């Protein structure tokens, strides 16, 4: 079933740029919707053009919200549109929910090229289709030049949690196995490679992907998954620390077990960054009782977004709230949360 984004547009695209033209959505706004968006997408819910989408629902609801301000907005392997859909879908999936409906709001800086907006909308459509979600309501605002950095997106999403699934960052228990779904650092480094002033080039692409399908396969393999989280800003290290603190347990990981692409390793060496702290947008961490670990890992490896899944460590009762790593050379050290920005190090 095709889907549409419903926009209450308060500006008009004149020639090739979005402008502050008319303050209220009128004839011109409707023209924009029909010419630019409805032609791309369609959806009976949106076709209703009501002020709010009304959807049937029953059971436990997962509800999340996020704003996307990534710069640059187009990066290798994706763009802010794809990121917005995947990020929200993944937040829902991390609670074990089946992602269902999204809202999508744009804040656009005056002068933003119309073609870029069209590309982003196309990405949204593609990501939503892949994730199996519908975008049922939305909004668009245009602000004065300088009041926004090109384009910001806000989303919220709702999903349904199946019976018997209870996943939370506070459920980790000593003895549990920590599984990582694939290579870390891809997204952050791909985005960094396009930033000004760092001049390094790589074929690396962002790993931005919707993980609802992977999670569904994991839950089929076992309903006993204790925690799941996607290591976005702050990276793997920050996310593991969050779980350790929420559950008041220790986590011990093996440096050699963590999958990192050669290009990510190289870029981190060059910039003085640590892959443990770099953002990922298509990966997850699962904390699973030892008896279920093999089944979950097997299910993950069968899925395209989990083919490099690996057991990277375990939950312990040593140093509760802390993450410790066994280094490559046989020592161990504490892995703390990210503090501040991972600025490229020169020293």
């Amino acid at each position: 079933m095709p889907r549409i984004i419903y926009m209450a547009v308060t500006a008009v695209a004149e020639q090739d740029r979005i402008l502050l033209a008319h303050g209220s959505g009128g004839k011109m706004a409707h023209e924009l919707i029909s010419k630019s968006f409805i032609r791309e997408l369609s959806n009976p819910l949106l076709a209703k053009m009501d002020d709010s989408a009304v959807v049937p629902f029953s059971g436990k609801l997962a509800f999340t919200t996020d704003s996307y301000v990534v710069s640059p907005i187009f990066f290798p392997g994706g763009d802010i549109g794809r990121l917005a859909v995947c990020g929200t879908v993944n937040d829902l999936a991390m609670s074990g929910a089946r992602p269902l409906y999204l809202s999508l709001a744009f804040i656009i800086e005056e002068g933003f090229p119309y073609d870029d907006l069209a590309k982003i909308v196309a990405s949204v459509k593609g990501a939503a289709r892949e994730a199996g979600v519908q975008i049922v309501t939305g909004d668009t605002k245009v602000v004065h030049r300088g009041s926004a950095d090109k384009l910001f997106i806000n989303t919220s999403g709702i999903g349904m949690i199946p019976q018997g699934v209870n996943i939370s960052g506070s459920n980790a228990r000593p003895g549990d196995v920590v599984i990582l779904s694939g290579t870390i650092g891809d997204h952050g480094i791909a985005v960094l490679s396009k930033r000004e002033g760092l001049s390094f080039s790589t074929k690396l692409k962002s790993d931005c992907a919707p993980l609802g399908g992977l999670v569904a396969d994991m839950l089929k393999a076992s309903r006993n998954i204790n925690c799941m989280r996607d290591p976005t800003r702050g990276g793997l290290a920050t996310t593991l620390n969050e779980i350790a603190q929420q559950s008041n347990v220790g986590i011990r990981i093996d440096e050699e077990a963590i999958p990192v692409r050669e290009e990510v390793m190289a870029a981190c060496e060059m910039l003085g960054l640590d892959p443990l702290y770099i953002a990922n947008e298509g990966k997850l961490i699962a904390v699973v009782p030892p008896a279920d670990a093999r089944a979950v890992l097997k299910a993950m490896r069968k899925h395209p977004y989990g083919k490099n899944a690996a057991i990277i460590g375990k939950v312990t009762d040593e140093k509760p709230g802390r993450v410790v790593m066994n280094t490559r050379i046989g020592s161990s050290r504490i892995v703390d949360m990210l503090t501040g920005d991972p600025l490229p190090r020169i020293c």
Partner: protein
Amino acid sequence: MKFIDEFRRSDLAKGLVSRIVQRSRTNVRFMEFCGGHTVAIFKYGIRQLLPPTIEMVSGPGCPVCVTSNSDIDKCIAFSQLPGVIVATFGDMLKVPGSRSSLQRAKAEGADVRMVYSALDALSMARDSTDKSVVFLGIGFETTAPTIAASILQAQEQKIVNYHVFSMHKLTPPVVKAVLDAGEVKIGGIVCPGHVSVITGSQAWEFVARDYGIPCVVSGFEPLDILQCISMLVEQVEGGRSEVEIAYSRGVCHEGNIEAQKLMHRVFQPSPAEWRGIGQVPGSGLKLREKYSRFDAERVFEIEPGESFEPDGCICGEVLRGVRTPHDCALFNSVCTPQSPVGPCMVSSEGTCAAYYLYGGDSRG
């Protein structure tokens, strides 16, 4: 041979650790003078592998940490000049001066941009001919030649709006100052690896000769550091004090002559103010008269205001190896990476930042 993974082999690390444990009999303290070594030692958990006879202590090796508050205040003042772009290495952005920081100045409207290389700052000058670029020249002998090259490149390309505020410092004079102060009994020195690429291992001969302290130049991979410590232990147990190299793939006796030439062509030694140590004669680098039109201090007039150190901050003592961060009342209470009081916490190579991030002296 790609020069990285080979020097991280765990089997070879075990061999070196065995040797160190077997051979080290004398209680000894080794000091490193390079922020990169401070970080590497923590990152690879080196302390944990060493026998209790060996104590590792950090000296003033972080160029950002040893920059005086008055210099930081000057950097902020440059950024507040109209029509000026301040280009800086990332490490400097969050360092607190007397009243503010570059990051805060940026939030208040100053044009402060992070660069990875002096070449980026040069491009900035080329692209924004209506503005002046002031590049904050920070770093020891590893970095100073690159800044010198950028000035010569600016001259070659007739770029007139590129300037450097030189806060560069030389390492041997400060090693001498720390040894002369005699506050910490040092039994061996882990010599900075990349500084030595430029200066050559000859730069440390005075330490072995005049102070009788063993010196070994170390690289930054775990095997380099372990090999360095192993060689220092051999010297200590053998009663020798020489300069040796545990980074022979990058360091030689004379160093990089071309880099030394460029550095001396553009810069001359000057007195410099080191945080926590005070004035050390001949330890700084300033632009020669011939290049004065690239010298930000001579081209621009700034009013940095009065400079003062924050209360309770013992960065100076930490830098000299007299105290560890754990001895500081502010450490991990008032002073954290998110709200640093002194530069040792905010710089990515600062001793306090390393202790905070890697959990302190972890002996298992």
